[in-house]
């Protein structure tokens, strides 16, 4: 299972990737899949089992998210509450 984190701004997306890299959490920016409705064309892709860690870090570093989606291969489901 993988997780996509979307943002309102590419700058927030890149800051999120830097935060993840610094924490040693494997993640990378990928183009926004068409199934996800977000203004920013980049989303952060990571394994779902580390998504909680990176979401917590982003909150602590004041990096605002748009949404969190779980799934794989084009079938993404918005996480409840995100």
């Amino acid at each position, binding site marked *: 299972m993988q997780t996509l984190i979307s943002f309102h*701004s*590419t*700058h*927030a997306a890149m800051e999120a990737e*830097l935060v993840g890299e610094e924490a040693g959490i494997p993640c990378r920016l*990928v183009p926004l899949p068409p199934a996800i409705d977000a*203004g920013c*064309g980049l989303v952060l892709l990571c394994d779902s089992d580390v998504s909680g860690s990176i979401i917590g870090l982003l909150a602590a570093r*004041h990096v*605002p998210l748009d949404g969190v989606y779980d799934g794989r291969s084009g079938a993404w489901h918005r996480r409840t509450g995100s």
Partner: protein
Amino acid sequence: MIYFDQSATSVHKPPEVAEAVALGLRGGYGNPSRGAHDPALHALQEVAKARRAVAAYFGASPLEVAFTFNATMALNMAIKGALTTGDCVLTTPYSHNAMLRPLYEMQDRGMRLDIMPLDQQGGCTLAGIMQHIRPDTTALALNPMSNVTGDTVLLAEIIALCRQRDLLLILDMAQWAGTRPMPHIDNWPRTLIAFTGHKSLYGPQGIGGLINLGQVPLSPIITGGSGTHSFDRQHPGVFPDVCEAGTPNVPGLMGLRAGLQWLTETGPDAVQQRLAMLRGRFVAGLAQIPQVKVYGGEQADAGPVVSINLGDMPSSSLSDALYQKHGIATRSGAHCAPLMHRALGTVQQGTVRFSFSYFNCIEEVDCALEALDALSTQ
């Protein structure tokens, strides 16, 4: 050539700055925010690293930093983007035209603008500012270091005052930034800080920015491509995107980051001490030269700027003689600070401004004093 025009721009920069700019040009960087391939992402990462470096220097979070092409552009975005005709703004004679002209533009649209006078010593005191804040004042637009005299305000106290009175604070840090540490503030009021990269942050020209502390709502002043929300008719309102229409200056931002890294490694306190030493030596030497008049700058912690005249000689003639006969670069005239020159009584004569860099040395200061001494006896 001896360069004493740091307040206009820094000519001597750490070599790492040019190396970083060159890497930005030859390193295969793409257009940030405009794709997910490596060239675009690498460029976006460089922008993010520059954002982090600026945030660290000013005590902000990275996403509170927007990049512009200079402080003038940032001040236009702050003043026209945050203020409305319902605002009442107080400013001081220290303000540069980069602040004043956008304020005047808003005044012409109906916004109220108050300009406090300098005190009898030519300074801008906390008490004076407090005296001129009206009950309906909503914002303070402030240059905390005069680009004419080097005089400063008590910035930390003014920040606290704005917090107490819930005033929006618009700061022009073009002169201050890099010449001394930023004050340590735990609880900023709503504040918009404009900075430029090419003066005492030692970056290249063409980069600057606006720092938004307290999520001040901004209307976009320049709209266009953002790389996001492409089907919306309006430019994104989220910060920093609201200030960053179009392609940024990636090589310039890489140079700015290198300048900030040099500044951090050198130490803002060490930089301030060196600048104070150079300024102090110069001012002490000026006191021995006949006909020299020094304007303001009597504070012990004045910034690295000294404005003078020699008798009745037009400032343009003195500045030209310094350069043509002695190879000393200064700036004459009004320095884009009309209110300050009116307050000093130098509208006609102007002043000759000497402004110092960390890379200046005592020998250069002494050369300037010898040159002025020679010119004073001609």
